[in-house]
């Protein structure tokens, strides 16, 4: 800041002593590190199951809120996680956290859905291929892992962001406060939208016969989801 005469006046104000963060209400699980997830479930499936891509579509109804930890990775799109992803998450987070003061918890089950692949170079036909590997389905809005303990969001965010980037769907690291803030902002946008025409309204009353071009699922998805993608900018 410049003082009178253009001379720079150095300013050092009073030091504001902030209290250290309070970690009193945190309970640690027995094993602070992430559990090892199997490639194949203990009872492998005999019957080959249909593809059922609807387990990727739409918003998630499970694991949308925090249980034990304070920070986590939120999925912003649908996708399948296979064993390689699980190992990557487990090892990266295991390398980055300090097991004495931090812990991490899975919020997705081990791979349970069998995925079949036909061998390469064969023509169509000949029945369904054999089971190749197992995957876990993740819908948008679901938490993948949770991290907690005596740590701040700024310490945890770098490695969670690295993990989130490597996932097959778009994901972001979140904390309890940031997730609440995200939801609040979404709600605010929905309420102060100046556009009198909303997707929901048009679909529900089938204005201009729009439902010919839309799916019955759009009644529930309300234009925010398209396939496995989550359209964040839409209200």
């Amino acid at each position, binding site marked *: 800041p410049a*003082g*009178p005469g253009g001379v720079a*006046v*150095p300013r050092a*104000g*009073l030091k*504001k*002593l902030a209290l250290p963060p309070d970690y009193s209400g945190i309970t640690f699980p027995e094993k602070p590190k992430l559990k090892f997830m199997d490639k194949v479930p203990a009872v492998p499936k005999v019957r080959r199951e249909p593809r059922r*891509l*609807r387990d*990727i*579509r739409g918003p998630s109804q499970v694991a949308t809120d925090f249980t034990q930890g304070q920070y986590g990775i939120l999925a912003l799109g*649908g996708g399948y996680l296979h064993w390689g992803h699980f190992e990557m998450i487990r090892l990266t987070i295991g390398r980055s956290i300090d097991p004495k003061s931090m812990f991490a918890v899975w919020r997705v089950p081990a791979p349970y859905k069998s995925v079949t692949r036909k061998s390469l170079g064969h023509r169509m036909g000949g029945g369904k291929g054999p089971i190749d590997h197992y995957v876990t389905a993740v819908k948008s809005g679901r938490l993948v892992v949770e991290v907690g303990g005596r740590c701040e969001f700024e310490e945890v965010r770098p490695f969670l962001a690295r993990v989130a980037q490597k996932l097959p769907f778009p994901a972001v690291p979140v904390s309890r406060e940031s997730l609440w803030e995200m939801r609040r902002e979404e709600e605010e*946008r929905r309420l*102060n*939208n*100046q*556009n009198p*025409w*909303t*997707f929901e309204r*048009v679909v*529900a*009353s*089938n204005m201009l*016969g*729009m*439902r*010919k*071009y*839309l*799916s*019955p*699922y759009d*009644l529930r998805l309300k*234009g925010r989801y*398209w*396939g*496995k*993608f989550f359209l964040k*900018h*839409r*209200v």
Partner: protein
Amino acid sequence: GAGAGVGAGAGAERCPAAWLPALQLLRRGSKAVTRHWKAMHFQRQKLLALTEYLPPRPAVPPRCLPRHTPEGHQEDGYVRVLRRQVEETLRSSRMVAVCQYNSMADEDVVTLRHFLRKHNIHVKFFLNEVVRPVLAQSKYRNLLPLFVCRNILLVSPETRAREMLRVLKGVPQVNLLGACIDDTILSRQGVENFARLPPLEASQGQTVAALSLLSSQTSSLLQQGPAHLTALLDEHIRQLREAGESTEPPPGQSTAND
């Protein structure tokens, strides 16, 4: 092949007022959920373009409105303690000198403190942002312009400006800006003049002497007449005695009738 889904029956329960299409488009090859971004029907694109989010636009943009500085500025207990210390210092000292303080080595600061302490002058460091509100509310309002840059306060319960100036003359990094001595605000020249004044006892003696000058003169004034007469007679007697000794007047003539 092309599939036609009949959705009329299932949909009628949900929204009885609207009509539902008898045929739903299921001609294209890929399924609903794909790995790639499935191309949308143009009508759907138009609908999404129509139903986009429009943010509220107030008549006066918020950047034109006066910006409120964050209120609810909790006053630290620490700030309150510091303010109390400043008030205490100001109350208990007769002389308060404000000096500009440039960076000095630590040992120089200690030496300065030591020499000033010998004359019972205390060196105080206070933050401007703490001192300014205290001064604004007390009677030292006119000292506010001095508290701009880095400064120190030299406070003392006695007014020994001469020793203070002598010590400060040897320290080039500390420059006297102004002082408040006995509720009188003095500038640098004023402090120097004050230092050149004689000490209190001498000036008191001088005042007493000046006041009692007239009364001491009264007695001498009253006695001036008779004293003058006495002096004249003494002179006359001395002259007569000298004249009598020189001419040896006869004893008969000395008793002259007049």
